[in-house]
């Protein structure tokens, strides 16, 4: 082998643990909701398994036709990041839809109370 897979295991596992630690800490400080952290945690755990369990990584690389197994790690990471991004796009879409609904309801509510005030003034 021309590369040091032992070092790769260590670096990858360390990086994943740092990310998982940051995610947990963000939840703890209530800056990240559990529902939006789940995908990150799943991603982290899969990466951790592949980094530590070399047999699985090699089998995966073999199955996917990747000649250099550590590249398979990047491939998997890239896939998961794509899924996370797509998930965020759907979340963003839902939020903007809800934001529109809120703005509309609030505007209608305010114009209603303003109309009521005008009515009171006319009556006075």
């Amino acid at each position, binding site marked *: 082998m021309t590369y040091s897979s032992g070092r790769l295991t260590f670096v990858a596992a360390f990086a994943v643990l740092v990310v998982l630690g940051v995610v947990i800490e963000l939840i703890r400080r209530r800056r990240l909701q559990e*529902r939006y952290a789940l995908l990150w945690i799943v991603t982290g755990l899969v990466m951790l398994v592949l980094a530590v369990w070399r047999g699985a990584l090699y089998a995966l690389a073999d199955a996917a036709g990747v000649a250099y197994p550590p590249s398979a790690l990047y491939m998997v990471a890239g896939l998961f990041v794509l899924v996370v991004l797509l998930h965020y796009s759907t979340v963003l879409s839902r939020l903007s*839809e809800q934001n529109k*609904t809120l703005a509309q309801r609030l505007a209608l509510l305010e114009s209603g109370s303003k109309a009521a005030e005008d009515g009171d003034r006319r009556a006075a």
Partner: protein
Amino acid sequence: MRKAAIVPAFNEARSIAGVVAELQASHPEFEIVVVDDGSTDETAAVARRAGAEVVTLPFNLGIGGAVQTGIEWARRRGCDLAVQVDGDGQHDPREIEKLLQPILAGQADVTVGTRFAGDGTYRAPLARRVGIGVFARIVSLIVRQRVTDTTSGFRAMNARAIELFADEYPFDYPEVEATVLIFRHRLRLAEVPVVMRHREQGRSSITGLRSLYYMGKVSLALFVGLLRPRPALAK
């Protein structure tokens, strides 16, 4: 003493009128608020016709957000007692008395009607029973008290609990986390055996992929919750 009956309802047009009527018949002293969680059917109109106050959310928030809306409603009205009753008719309002008793006696701040501690006629599907059982064990360990049903939404609470939950309540699938929240804020929890009916309409919202999400989200929340410092004693 002002008392509120909070009924979260999402597309329960077919059962909500019955629930409201039963509440009025068995507990006329309760002010009934139906929190319509962005229903796409006639839930709000039906509930209003039945004589309940209706708060309609502009879109579906999920059960946690809906219940908290009702609790905030109760707080603003100055209620010192609130019960939470599902809009699908599976909770029998005649059982409310059992929930209120420990609170009125000053022995508990929150009571939860449980299907498992008592008469034992309730049979959930196996997978669900296992899931409920696992969380019940974990929660029992955390709160150092035997808890048998962490999924029941049939609850009663006093003014202290109304105050706490109006400020802090889990967003979706809230029951497990709420149980831990009660303990962390040093409120007293009591489980009360009740008889529940089969749902009049509809099925559990937790199936398939959602149950995976449910398990993951609740486990994560429980775990991270343990890493937070315990809140200071409430006034």
